[in-house]
């Protein structure tokens, strides 16, 4: 089944929601890779693959803590793009699942890095709108404040749609040229992408939770789970 253009259009719109939910509005976590990538999977007809990308991209980026004005990577949108690329290219290259997944994830991580710039632009436009909002209050037009606020949300939404559309177009035009060069040997080597990203995710989580005073509890948890795994066989 070839992905319909309408489904892709809905995905770009959902990219806008991902962008808005990341910072500007709600923050209900529907923008997190685990959720957003699965939605991409549902829209493009392969929830399992979407969920796989979501699980792999979710955990490593937990190490980025959005405190104050710290500059973070654009992990949510980039993970969403990675899921779209994997879903789209898996249909075109059914025998190269590992290679498609590897290159989609690789580009996703790279886009998250480059995409930090999008946040900067977003905040520049926010500043432009915020100045007007403040001026409206100073001029006594207080009723206009919600309009400017929703304009900020729309700004985030629009930039998210554009981010997804641009980076998806870039990936979907770039990757087939690389995937055409892949053979069975590469395909086997790329099977390591999943355990590597999962391991990186767990490493990030351990970094957050395991301190000097909690090492013993983490070890206890690991020991009990090991026992459980052995008992399960």
């Amino acid at each position, binding site marked *: 089944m070839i992905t319909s253009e309408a489904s892709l259009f809905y995905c770009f719109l959902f990219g806008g929601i991902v962008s808005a939910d990341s910072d500007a509005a709600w923050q209900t976590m529907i923008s997190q890779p685990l959720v957003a990538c699965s939605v991409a999977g549902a829209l493009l007809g392969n929830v399992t693959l979407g969920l796989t990308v979501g699980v792999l991209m979710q955990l490593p980026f937990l190490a980025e803590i959005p405190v104050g004005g710290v500059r973070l990577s654009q992990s949510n949108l980039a993970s969403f793009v990675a899921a779209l690329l994997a879903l789209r290219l898996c249909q075109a290259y059914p025998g190269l699942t590992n290679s498609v997944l590897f290159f989609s994830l690789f580009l996703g*991580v790279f886009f998250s890095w480059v995409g930090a710039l999008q946040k900067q632009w977003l905040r520049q436009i926010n500043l432009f709108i*915020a100045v007007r909002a403040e001026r409206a209050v100073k001029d006594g037009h207080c009723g206009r404040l919600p309009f400017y606020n929703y304009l900020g949300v729309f700004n985030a939404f629009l930039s998210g749609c554009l981010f997804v559309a641009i980076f998806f177009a870039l990936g979907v035009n770039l990757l087939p040229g690389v995937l055409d060069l892949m053979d069975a040997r590469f395909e086997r080597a790329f099977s390591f992408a999943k355990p590597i990203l999962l391991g*990186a995710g767990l490493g990030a989580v351990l970094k957050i939770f395991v301190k000097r005073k909690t090492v013993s509890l983490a070890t206890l948890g690991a020991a009990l789970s090991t026992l459980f795994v052995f008992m399960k066989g």
Partner: protein
Amino acid sequence: MRWFDLVRVVHSTLYIQALWTYEKMLSVGYTICLLPFALRWFKDTEAQKEFLNRNLDFFNTHPYMVSWIVGASIKLEEESQKTGTPSLEQQLRFRRRMSEALAAIGDQLFWNRIKPLTALLGALYALYYGPAGIVIFLVAYNIPHFYHRIAGALIGYREGFNVMKVVSNKRYNLILSRLLSFCAFIAGSAFVLAADSPFVTSMGERIAFVGSAAITLVSLRYGRAVPEILILLLLGGTFIGFILN
């Protein structure tokens, strides 16, 4: 304030970061949260303008915890309009103190505990049982999230100055400490369960899993950026995989 105005305040807090800027951070969003009160309480435009203008100064806190400050600030403003106390200076000091304390509590509680914990549980469940993990993540995360948004505005408005006792550092430090212990236990368990998951099947993959976890842990401690670590791991891991194959 009517009940419906408080609902509008809670709704406004959902968009508090819409106009986040480096210069004033959440000041515009915070002012918008006060708008339902300003429109209800002050009948003439000049008074509304004056009230909102003095709230446009620099303001920053955790976005979920802002409801406590908004609710309490509205109460204090009401009292001030009725009785003359607290003074403007007292209100500003209260706002500054609360915003600093709640920023630290919120960052620790949500970004360092609840978000990683619920995401880990959701992802782990999804690894074994599929999309139900998403529901676990969203529900487990959003219960404390919306509790703070809604209860913050309601209790803040009821308590005024006394809200400081409800969201005290002492109380939250205990919660944070216990939660960290629980999170560490879950993280330890999750590590073993993930190593035995359908994503890690062969011995070679298990070595890759443990190795990348160790490298990530050390690299993060040395302040490396996450994408940088992941790119290097993916390239290095695949290179080794290619040689072994």
